């Protein structure tokens, strides 16, 4: 086996090194990142949710996290990003899943063939133990030629040991045939990793060096596959009958009948958690008792003596839509508890292993609208916040899918702050009417998706994912992920709230609000059969969706009027913040098309419904 690279690749003295975390999706890289750098990175178990690179510092060195990938190449955005980061790495920490070595070692061996100094952190060792899997890590270390350290990152075990092993990082034992082929290219391409990429047919890297890409990928992949199998055979012992119960549970989730029952059960559970408990009881406490009962009078009392509430500045600060009163109440009293509740639910779904099975279960329906099962993730995240859903569509395989998913999220999917209010209002009108609302919304989703699927050019990608074993979610991990994600979301969203309420206050003060209301009013009263004040709610919905929904709760509406107004507000235009993201992600033309289309869709569907029932 080769040692040619060892002498050359002596680690630079610590300080200013680039240390890169690499691994398959779902292996726990982010825990290493946040533990070592002290910074929070978004943590998710579902493939592709980290599409940006997180960077932090450990001492003098830079630590970089990469998206979870199955291999290094140019196939999709995640692998391209990972490839470019890895090519500049001084040291790689490869995190693998001890319960899935036969899969994870493929990437490990590719990194070994690249010849970058590395350390392997074998994570989920506690899970492996529970499943009765025994791994000889010494032998593994011997066969790979790099340090292999068992860890159980969620329990905080092994992290320090891996860190301590960094000085021992070294290039591994490359496959002799691959090594030979790479060495051949070294006269034209200066570094091993890049030479390997060219050998595997990477067009981009080849271009950078002004050579033609070679065609050895399949052969090398086969060799690597064989080697992975041999290594696993030599180091892993699996019990014959492992985890039957989990297997069966996993199968139940996929079966058409039991799968549907489970899905409905999960939806019901989420509704109870988010819709009833958080949106009802918790928000009642935080928004009404604490914020409106204590905070608002206090801040008004503080400002009033200095700036009269009736003055323009006073209106803006502490008036009805005041920046210091309503906005802060909403942020802390309504949005925060809802976002937390939502993320708790999502983290549980991820950690249990249910989420990929959900994607598989709904794949058939998704393909009908030009997407695949994976699109269920941006849609679920869109329920948290439309901005987040739009950004997450990047994980989808083609531009066409991104457009379809983004449109659906912005047209149809209501965000969590809105959802809370919507659930509350639906709870008051009873089951049948709630189902009618849901039915109308789903119908719109299907229509928008089908139409776009028919008219957009190109082909969408198909589902190809692995289903992790069902696990019992660990409370600490769920809480940790919830805290991190809530923090990141609030950090991003809060400024748009303030901007929004400033906008609404200005509109109110200048009479612009009344003007819009007068414009929309005839349509609202005659076409939608709703009270004129509902148009204020709709207008506010342009600035911030949840302001719109909440505006409806103050009105006296008959049950059917509630359904019509909720349909309109759900289908309505994206809020200013989401519109900004839309401009950024999809471009001006698409963003404007969505904005105008949403007006048309909301009022048409709402109007037709109103004509029928009111």
């Amino acid at each position, binding site marked *: 086996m080769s040692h040619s690279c060892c002498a050359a690749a002596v680690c630079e003295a610590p300080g200013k090194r680039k240390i890169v975390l690499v691994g398959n999706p779902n292996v726990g890289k982010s825990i290493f990142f946040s533990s070592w750098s002290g910074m929070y990175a978004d943590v998710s178990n579902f493939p592709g949710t980290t599409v940006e690179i997180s960077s932090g510092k450990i001492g003098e060195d830079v630590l970089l996290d990469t998206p979870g990938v199955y291999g290094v190449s140019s196939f999709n955005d995640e692998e391209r990003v990972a490839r470019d980061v890895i090519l500049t790495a001084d040291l790689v920490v490869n995190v693998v899943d001890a319960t899935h070595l036969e899969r994870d070692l493929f990437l490990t061996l590719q990194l070994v063939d690249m010849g970058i100094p590395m350390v392997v952190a074998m994570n989920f060792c506690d899970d492996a133990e529970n499943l009765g899997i025994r791994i000889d890590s010494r032998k593994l270390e011997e066969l790979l030629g790099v340090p292999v350290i068992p860890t159980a990152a969620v329990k905080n075990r092994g992290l320090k040991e891996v860190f301590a092993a960094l000085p021992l990082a070294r290039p591994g034992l490359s496959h002799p045939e691959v090594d030979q082929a790479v060495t051949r290219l070294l006269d034209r391409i200066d570094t091993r990793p890049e030479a390997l990429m060219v050998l595997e047919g990477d067009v981009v890297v080849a271009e950078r060096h002004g050579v033609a890409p070679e065609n050895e990928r399949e052969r090398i992949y086969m060799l690597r596959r064989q080697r992975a199998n041999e290594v696993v055979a030599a180091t892993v012992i699996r019990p014959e009958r492992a985890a039957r119960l989990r297997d069966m549970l996993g199968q139940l989730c996929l079966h058409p009948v039991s799968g549907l029952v489970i899905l409905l059960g999960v939806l019901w559970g989420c509704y109870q958690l988010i819709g009833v408990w958080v949106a009802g009881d918790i928000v009642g406490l935080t928004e009404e008792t604490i914020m409106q009962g204590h905070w608002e009078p206090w801040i008004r009392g503080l400002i009033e003596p200095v700036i009269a509430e009736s003055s323009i500045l006073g209106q803006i600060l502490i008036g009805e839509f005041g920046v210091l009163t309503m906005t802060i109440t909403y942020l802390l009293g309504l949005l925060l508890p809802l976002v937390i509740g939502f993320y708790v639910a999502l983290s549980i779904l991820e950690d249990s292993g249910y989420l990929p099975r959900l994607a598989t279960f709904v*794949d058939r329906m998704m393909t009908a609208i030009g997407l695949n099962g994976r699109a269920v993730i941006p849609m679920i995240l869109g329920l948290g916040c439309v901005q987040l859903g739009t950004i997450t569509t990047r994980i989808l395989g083609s531009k066409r899918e991104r457009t379809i998913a983004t449109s659906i999220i912005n047209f149809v999917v209501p965000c969590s702050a809105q959802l809370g209010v919507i659930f509350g209002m639906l709870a008051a009108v009873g089951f049948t009417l709630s189902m009618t609302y849901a039915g109308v919304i789903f119908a719109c989703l299907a229509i928008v998706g089908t139409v776009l699927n028919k008219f957009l050019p190109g082909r969408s990608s198909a589902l*190809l994912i692995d289903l992790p074993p069902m696990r019992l979610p660990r409370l600490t991990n769920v809480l940790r992920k919830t805290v991190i994600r809530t923090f990141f979301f609030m950090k991003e969203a809060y400024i748009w709230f303030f901007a929004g309420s400033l906008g609404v206050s200005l509109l109110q003060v200048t009479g612009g609000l009344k003007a819009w209301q007068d414009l929309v009013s005839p349509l609202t009263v005659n076409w939608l059969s709703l009270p004129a004040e509902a148009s204020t709610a709709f207008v506010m919905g342009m600035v911030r969706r949840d302001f719109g929904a909440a505006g409806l709760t103050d009105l006296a509406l008959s049950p059917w009027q509630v359904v019509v107004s909720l349909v309109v507000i759900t289908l309505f235009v994206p809020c200013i913040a989401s519109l900004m993201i839309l401009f950024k992600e999809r471009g001006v033309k698409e963003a404007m098309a969505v904005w105008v289309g949403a007006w048309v869709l909301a009022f048409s569907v709402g109007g037709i419904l109103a004509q029928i029932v009111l």
Partner: protein
Amino acid sequence: MSLTDLRHGQCATITAIPDEYLRVQLLRFGITCGSEIRCHCKLPLGPVVLKFGSQEIAMGREIARMVSVQANR
């Protein structure tokens, strides 16, 4: 026959994967011509879920149709 023709629980060997991109994607999971897989379950008109070693892999019906297999006795 293709993957979509397998019955629940039936074992088979992969004989051909004509599409190059699919071939490479599957190789990542370790699946190539000659690999032995078991049909874990099939959703009606939906994805096919395979068992390969200890892995469970879900494939959309469209691509599952493209993979030729030979059923094992």
